[in-house]
């Protein structure tokens, strides 16, 4: 899930923000990845998985708070708050946390999404005590220095300019969600609207901290060169004394059923157009999750996939086609994305995408194609589970979005159970015209004429 951008030749837009870690697995997973867990007296669940293959540890804390828990006027505050978690608490003042960690061989990062805010620590086991000291300090005693808030506001504005203004896919994705949702909080961007970034107050921040940063609203996952016993002992010392309090109020807004296709256009200086199509689909813990994943896999994964073959290889109307469905606690979007070639009307790509979806609705896939999709999921599972970082993220993701990390071990069974009738059924059920939002970015020549063809 770490978004490292490499500058490669002809880099295309990268939408793959780490699809959820799931796949069919072998029978031996439980033996290969033995997991221990404990719920502390203050309600924080701790999950530990020992792996001595490298002398390092990945420690992830998943807080169940994200842009879904925000309101108009303070959109983006979860993400801003994530930044503030690095800007000083009681024992470790501004800048001290990063300096102490890096000086002891540790690195950190964090990400905010619609449902969660996740703090990641990667370190040699020699830094174990320090990490617990730091995490306990900031969960309990975060400081709110007005000067830090002012400068961090500028940092986040710069982040927004980079990920939205200077990124056509970023702009279009933001517009797509804002149009597909009319009631539910998934309508605003995680980074927040610029005017909200400029205006939220110290009180807003304090309120957010009190609302979301309770130990009983978090799960800690530790993977690597540690034993469950030593982690539970450190938790007793550092984490357990932190008092629990009420978690964020439940999000009760339910997005009403979409009653007809919605369309939007973004005009922007660009050489190439862009296309995104979002369909409402259920939340991650819905039983259709597995069939939807298989459907997306056979549509866009690999160069033998249906949509790659159709749009990129045969019709040659797109440079790239992709689809994404991120983990979400509430009903979400399955988004198809196409990068049309220069001069190609995006509606041509749109028509080809609908045509491929219609084929799935009309005709069941072959046994071989279904097996291929399951094989791709299996390899992906091993690739995610073979590093300590990948395992920490996967375990936490299952715990949050499926409600129990043990579901990792059921993934194999759940994928194996997907039939071609399931794939056909979900294609018919969710990929209907009335249920879609279509976003198109159309190039607009600059004052001096952009695209010379």
């Amino acid at each position, binding site marked *: 899930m770490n978004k490292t951008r490499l500058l490669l030749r002809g880099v295309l*837009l990268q939408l793959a923000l780490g699809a959820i870690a799931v796949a069919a697995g072998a029978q031996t997973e439980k033996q290969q990845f033995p997991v221990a867990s404990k719920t502390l007296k203050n309600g924080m669940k701790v999950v530990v998985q020992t792996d001595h293959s*490298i002398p390092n540890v990945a420690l992830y804390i998943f807080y169940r708070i994200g842009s879904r828990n925000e309101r108009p006027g303070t959109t983006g505050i979860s993400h801003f708050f994530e930044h503030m978690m690095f800007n000083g608490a009681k024992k470790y003042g501004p800048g001290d946390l990063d300096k102490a960690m890096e000086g002891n061989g540790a*690195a950190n990062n964090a990400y905010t999404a619609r449902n969660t805010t996740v703090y990641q620590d990667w370190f040699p086991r*020699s830094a174990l005590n320090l990490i617990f000291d730091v995490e306990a300090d900031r969960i309990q005693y975060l400081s709110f220095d007005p000067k830090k808030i002012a400068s961090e*506001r500028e940092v986040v504005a*710069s982040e927004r300019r*980079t990920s939205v203004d200077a*990124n056509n896919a970023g702009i279009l994705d933001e517009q797509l969600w804002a149009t597909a949702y009319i009631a539910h909080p998934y309508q605003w961007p995680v980074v927040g609207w610029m005017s909200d970034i400029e205006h939220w107050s110290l009180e807003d921040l304090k309120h957010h901290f009190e609302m979301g940063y309770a130990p009983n609203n978090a799960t800690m996952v530790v993977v690597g060169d540690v034993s469950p016993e030593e982690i539970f002992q450190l938790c007793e010392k550092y984490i357990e004394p932190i008092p629990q309090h009420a978690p964020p109020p439940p999000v009760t807004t339910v997005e009403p059923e979409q009653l007809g296709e919605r369309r939007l256009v973004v005009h922007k200086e660009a050489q190439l157009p862009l296309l995104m199509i979002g369909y409402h689909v259920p939340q991650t813990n819905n039983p259709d999750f597995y069939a939807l994943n298989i459907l997306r896999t056979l549509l866009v994964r690999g160069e033998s996939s249906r949509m790659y073959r159709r749009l990129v290889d045969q019709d040659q109307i797109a440079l790239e086609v992709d689809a994404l469905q991120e983990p979400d606690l509430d009903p979400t979007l399955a988004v198809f994305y196409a990068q049309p070639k220069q001069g190609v009307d995006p509606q041509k790509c749109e028509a080809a995408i609908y045509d491929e979806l219609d084929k799935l609705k009309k005709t069941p896939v072959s046994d071989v194609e279904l097996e291929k999709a399951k094989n791709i999921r299996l*390899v992906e599972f091993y690739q995610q589970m073979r590093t300590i970082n990948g395992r920490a993220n996967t375990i936490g993701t299952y715990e949050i979005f499926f409600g129990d990390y043990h579901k990792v071990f059921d993934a194999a069974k759940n994928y194996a159970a997907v039939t071609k009738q399931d794939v056909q059924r979900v294609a018919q059920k969710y990929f209907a015209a009335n249920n879609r939002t279509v976003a198109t970015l159309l190039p607009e020549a600059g004052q001096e004429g952009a695209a010379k063809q």
Partner: protein
Amino acid sequence: MTVEIKWLRLLRAAVLVSGFVSGAAAQTLKLPPHEKIVLKNGLTLLLMEKHGVPMVSLAGIVKAGSVADPMGEEGLAAVTASLLRKGTAKRSSQKFSEDLDFTGGSFACDAGVDFTSLSAEFLSKDLDRGLDLFSDALLHPSFPQAEVDKMLAQDIDGIKAAKDEAQSVALNYYYGYLFGKHPYGRSEGGDELSLARIKRDAIARFYQANYTPGNTILAVAGDFDAAEMRTKIEQAFGGWEGKASSLAAISAPAPVKGKRLLLIDKPDSTQTFFGFGNIGTAVDDPDRVAIRVVNTIFGGRFTSELNEALRVESGLTYGAESFFDSRKVPGAFAIYSYTKNESTAPAIDLALQVLEKLHTDGVTPQQLASAKAYLKGQFPPEIETSGQLARRIASNEFYGLGDDEINQLEARIDAVTPAIAKQTIEKHFPEENLVFMLIGKASEIGPVVQKYATQHDTRKITEPGFWPPPAK
């Protein structure tokens, strides 16, 4: 985009120069045992068993990257690599993809600057099919005309799409402006005009001349028995023939004298993306470990001097960093960041001050200790998987670096003294002579950035090519 993160590294040297070893106290991280075999046809084979995950990783290196592109046909190595899987003697492009995807495995080819790399991963149970696919693409590509046409058209549009996102082409312009006519100045993927000149014949000739067993390194790591793997590899690759071409030696690029500045106009930009620096170092530079330690302090991590100044203390940017993109002969050094249009000059001024401070104040013993701990602590996950290990031993073999590059690294990091750090700063971090590259809204920032250089150049981002401007 639905995920926003604290910190993302924007630019990263394409080739990892050197590794860093874990290990506070007792433990020293070492490369797992591996063996090197040169087959009769000249292919260099590296084998490393690594059990636990039922997968096998292959990393191939063909000793010809974009440095081997003919003038005017930049991108030839890259296109050749991309086409390996697009039709072979026994498989159509579509059949290759079907066979590959059915295994769930991966296969990718990409031309870098110094070499072309192939990488693939398969479940151990699919090893035979995986080796068949890998050798089929490497040994028997047929370059069908229709696939050539399709690939070139896509790559040309891919360059234009990349230019719609300033950051993704920042290095193309910077390297072009820094290296000039030296082969390292070429865009690895070519440009809109050079790609249009490439013909199928040139691709076939490039393949014939460069894809030979003697010119190839193949590293295999993962869940297998080495003796059995050797037999399988000999069966799959032993019949490969072809004479190794003599590698044309590349001269070292001369550092740039004076100060010059290239401004790429992107009129819709709300932010300026800027990089500046000079020629850096070669992969095997004797000072490479000290450089890594000093650069960690200067611009290589979150608490670096650059990021502290430009992000943490001033809020001018989301990130600022410096890097050495080290190569066979000296590559680039750059300081890189971005900031809103209005603060372009303050941000560059501040970055220059941080560079000046590095030269006047040097680094403290505390900073040195911290950087050493950081590098040692963060290294083990870089050689955690069989794929990482295969790529690492293959590139070490290419660059002539031995296992000590990893096995002795902890000791080498520890050996960097304050005196060595001081010499390293003087020798390897530029001070007076600087090349600047900016992408941004020229009408707004043009006047304020004049002061950084005596020579000024400018282009529109939509004009075909990067730098130097392509010959018409």
